[in-house]
């Protein structure tokens, strides 16, 4: 373990950096930036692979994991070399991520560190490993498609693991998993012992409390006899395996019995039947921990199951509905005749065939007794369980869920006494009939439709979708929600548009590329997407029916049923293939950026949860190390450090990592004409333009002055540990600009090259001279201006962070010019922002190209 550097050694280093030390540090910094870029490149690359455009195999996944690990380790090692081993704990964080990625690669399921209980409103496919597949899908159906589902919450896999640990069963579970994986027989005794142990153990107090509190939140004021359904939600059941009927679900549970019912459901994972099932399907043993849904029971009038396709005769193009009075137990478990209807999949959903059962019994939920059989009154026995209009809504909902999930669905539903439809469960349908091969001459059939666009732009997410065109010309005027099934045709692929993607049939944008944030969202939601199609908003007309083939990148006029059917009949959607599932899991441990705000206490080495976090942290800290070196006293004979000669009073030191500026012998400064750094030039040019550098004397009123006089000032130092030197670290295509102007601190970190995927701008602004209200107004203004230029901006108090990425070089130069102007414009602006309405005025001034103060 290297010795922790003393304050003295750090100070000495800061003040008296020798030429050799500086050279060495810069060399290391450059290598850190290169490896940092390498990680980002690998992440972007891997994200693109999820779109379905590429063929990749398990070797790719292994190579990816290896390359990421190597690059991330190199970044961390270099940071510690630059900083005298200031961040040893970063190595621990890195090791944990390595292990977690390895687990994903080996199909081992991880248990995420989630809360014990998550409300259904926070549940979806991204947290599948915490909430299990069944609840994750129910969460998606609720939040993405707006379907009614019962209110409720999920007791997570994390809760299950902690329970098994406290029950002393964790080791037994792990041993069982290993033995199962080795293919050993005779595990029944062990399984039964765990099963019994789960039922007999007491639930840790903290967990019991979390469950009770969540249950209490479900009880409405004055409500008595609330009944709950406790449903298993295993993480293993995310692919082709349905686990139908293998795990227990308990219906009609009263509020006081939730904990014991939860135990029963968890115990149902350890039965000989489940082991046989897993063996039969050659499934991995799973993680051994189960998530469980706790849902309000809907007061049902009728319920049942709908298949979005007839699993025995998929070519018939019908939905199959089974319906019973009361609870769906009769339908799911069989045992009595139920209504069976076939409904056309075509819009309008005509009933194709109907077979009504004589309904003598039904299940109802009774407080204290669970699901109980009741006799159906004689007069109602021959009535259909579901009314025609309810059938149409059911069919329509099933088709929408199928379209969203991209595979045929097996859906449990219920209708309450008011006729409201609830979705209780949606899972992939196992189609048993042999799949019909694609139509022999699909290309001939397709040839009969008019081609509206061909090979314009690039495919960001593969797939086929059809629907009416909905043109979104101005991203600022987006509606909150679009009618489901629309084909969105938009000018720009903005992150805001990403929020509307759920439920869209397909998306085409004029601008954008396949590695942008928007494309990532499209792939996460599996919406067929073409980006950068240049003139789609001109070519396509609002309301016209089109079919987007985001495989061959063709847009047809009309609804090409043959193509839509082809998509549905494809043996399994690629996104469900094992390699894709593994890549998705790996990416969850690699790509999300949790460490966003360097001024927050959470911006710490031990909070790094992904490789992205690691490099973000290391990059930030490496730059902090660089700015601590006493550059001003660096000998002028060093060719890579120069002061920039500017026509405005800005003292700026440049550090060249390569190709950033030209140096003439014998000089100590460089001029704007010497700059060769592509991202620095537009910023500086704009900043030094007449009028951009706000010079009007700031007329500070007493209130503002007192605030600044009494507020403690070590603002920038306190936040970042950086001295006052303005610094630009540059290379041909890179710029890191740290500016301390008055009392605020501004960072611009950017890459500008010819590959749009590598380009980004990171803009951070914090501080100011006035009281927090005015500083916050300036932050608000910055946020709005950044957003109007396509940045994703976040603000908190006087801090603003804006990001934009994957733009082409021209668009980057345009934004960097704006950034240059913005730095000058906002320099003293907080002093002027005496009221909220002035924010609008100054935003308008900036956007109109005016100076902050009228010229005198």
């Amino acid at each position, binding site marked *: 373990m290297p010795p922790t550097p003393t304050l003295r050694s750090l100070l000495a280093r800061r003040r008296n950096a020798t030429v050799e030390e500086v050279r060495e540090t810069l060399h290391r910094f450059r290598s850190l930036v290169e490896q940092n870029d390498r990680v980002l490149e690998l992440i972007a690359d891997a994200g693109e*692979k999820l779109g379905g*455009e*590429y*063929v*990749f*195999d*398990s*070797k*790719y996944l292994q*190579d990816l994991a290896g390359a990421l690990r190597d690059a991330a380790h190199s970044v961390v090692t270099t940071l510690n070399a630059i900083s005298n081993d200031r961040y040893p704990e970063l190595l621990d964080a890195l090791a944990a991520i390595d292990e977690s990625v390895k687990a994903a690669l080996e199909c081992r399921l991880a248990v995420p560190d989630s809360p014990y209980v998550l409300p259904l409103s926070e549940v979806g496919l991204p947290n599948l490993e915490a909430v299990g597949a069944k609840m994750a899908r129910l969460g998606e159906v609720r939040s993405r498609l707006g379907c009614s589902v019962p209110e409720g919450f999920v007791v997570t896999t994390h809760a299950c693991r902690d329970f098994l640990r406290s029950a002393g069963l964790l080791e037994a579970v792990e041993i069982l998993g290993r033995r199962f994986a080795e293919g050993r027989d005779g595990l029944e005794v062990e399984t039964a012992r765990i099963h019994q142990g789960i039922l007999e153990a007491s639930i840790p107090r903290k967990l019991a409390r979390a469950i009770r509190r969540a249950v209490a939140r479900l009880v409405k004021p004055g409500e008595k006899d609330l009944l709950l359904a406790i449903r298993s939600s295993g993480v293993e059941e995310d692919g082709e395996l349905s686990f139908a009927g293998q795990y227990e679900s308990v219906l009609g549970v009263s509020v006081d019995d939730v904990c014991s019912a939860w135990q029963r459901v968890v115990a149902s994972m350890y039965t000989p039947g489940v082991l046989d099932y897993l063996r039969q399907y050659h499934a991995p043993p799973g993680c051994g921990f189960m998530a469980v849904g706790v849902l309000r029971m809907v007061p049902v009038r009728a319920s049942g199951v709908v298949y979005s396709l007839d699993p025995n005769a998929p070519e018939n193009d019908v939905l199959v509905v089974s319906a019973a009075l009361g609870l769906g137990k009769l339908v799911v478990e069989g045992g009595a005749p139920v209504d069976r209807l076939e409904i056309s999949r075509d819009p309008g959903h005509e009933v194709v065939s109907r077979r009504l059962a004589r309904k003598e019994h039904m299940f109802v939920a009774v407080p204290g007794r669970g699901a109980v059989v009741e006799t159906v009154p004689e007069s109602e026995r021959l009535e259909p369980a579901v009314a025609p209009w309810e059938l149409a809504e059911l069919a329509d909902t099933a088709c929408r869920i199928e379209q969203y999930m991209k595979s045929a669905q097996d859906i449990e539903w219920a209708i309450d006494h008011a006729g409201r439809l609830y979705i209780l469960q949606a899972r992939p349908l196992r189609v048993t009939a042999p799949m019909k*091969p*694609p139509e022999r*001459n*699909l*290309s001939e059939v397709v040839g009969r439709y008019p081609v509206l666009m061909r090979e314009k732009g690039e495919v960001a997410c*593969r797939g086929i979708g059809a629907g009416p065109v909905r043109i979104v010309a101005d991203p600022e005027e987006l509606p909150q929600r679009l009618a489901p099934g629309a084909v969105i045709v938009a000018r720009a692929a903005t992150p805001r548009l990403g929020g509307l993607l759920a439920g869209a049939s397909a998306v085409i944008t004029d601008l954008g590329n396949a590695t942008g944030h928007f494309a990532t969202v499209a792939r996460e939601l599996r919406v067929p997407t073409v980006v950068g199609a240049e003139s789609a908003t001109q070519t396509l007309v609002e309301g016209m029916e089109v079919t987007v083939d985001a*495989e*061959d*990148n063709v847009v047809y006029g009309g609804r090409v049923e043959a193509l839509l059917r*082809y998509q549905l009949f*494809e*043996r*399994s959607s*690629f996104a469900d*293939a*094992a*390699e894709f599932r593994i890549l998705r899991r790996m990416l969850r441990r690699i790509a999300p950026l949790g460490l966003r705000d360097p001024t927050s206490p959470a911006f710490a080495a031990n909070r790094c949860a992904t490789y992205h976090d690691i490099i973000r942290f290391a990059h930030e800290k490496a730059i902090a190390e660089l700015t601590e070196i006493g550059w001003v006293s660096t000998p002028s004979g060093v060719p890579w450090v120069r002061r920039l000669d500017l026509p405005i009073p800005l003292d700026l030191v440049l550090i060249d990592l390569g190709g950033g500026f030209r140096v003439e012998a014998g000089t100590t400064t460089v001029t704007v004409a010497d700059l060769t750094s592509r991202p620095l030039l537009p910023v500086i040019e704009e900043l030094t333009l007449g009028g951009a550098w706000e010079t009007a004397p700031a007329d500070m009123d007493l209130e503002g002055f007192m605030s600044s006089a009494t507020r403690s000032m070590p603002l920038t130092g306190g936040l970042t540990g950086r001295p006052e030197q303005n610094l630009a670290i540059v290379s041909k295509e890179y710029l890191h600009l740290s500016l301390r102007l008055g009392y605020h601190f501004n960072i611009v970190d950017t890459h500008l090259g010819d590959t749009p995927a590598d380009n980004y701008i990171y803009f951070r602004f914090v501080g100011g001279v006035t009281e927090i209200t005015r500083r916050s107004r300036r932050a608000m203004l910055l946020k709005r201006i950044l957003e109007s230029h396509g940045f994703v901006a976040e603000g908190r108090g006087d801090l603003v962070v804006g990001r934009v990425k994957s733009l082409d070089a021209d668009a980057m130069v345009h934004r960097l010019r704006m950034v240059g102007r913005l730095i000058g414009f906002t320099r003293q602006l907080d002093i002027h922002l005496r009221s909220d309405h002035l924010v609008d005025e100054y935003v308008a001034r900036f956007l109109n190209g005016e100076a902050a103060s009228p010229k005198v």
Partner: protein
Amino acid sequence: MKATRKKVLLLDDEPIVCERLKPALEKIGFYVESYTEGQKVVDRVMEETFDVLVTDLKMQKPDGLEVMDFVRQHAPATKVIIITGFATVDTAVETLKGGAVDFIAKPFKIRTLCDLIVKLTSSEPAAP
């Protein structure tokens, strides 16, 4: 008049590769058979003539190179495309010398392979 469909053989020991490529090629009008074992391809080539063989390199015996050699000898009209995750200049040169018409490194875009096969087969009548 309906054109006879061109015939493509796929060989890769990783099922995902065949599962992705087969429907994509069928969609644009090819007849496709896919296999995960080299021996099956060797058997099929003796029974029927195919226009194109797409094969991985590293596999259990017979591996991609051996299958290619066999096809070059017994079905010289069949064009061979190599797809591999172990792409180096040396392997590319070696396989092209061995008679492959093209060499594609994995991961690759489905479109790239489809376009290539369309190009290779467009000028000639389908194999009998």
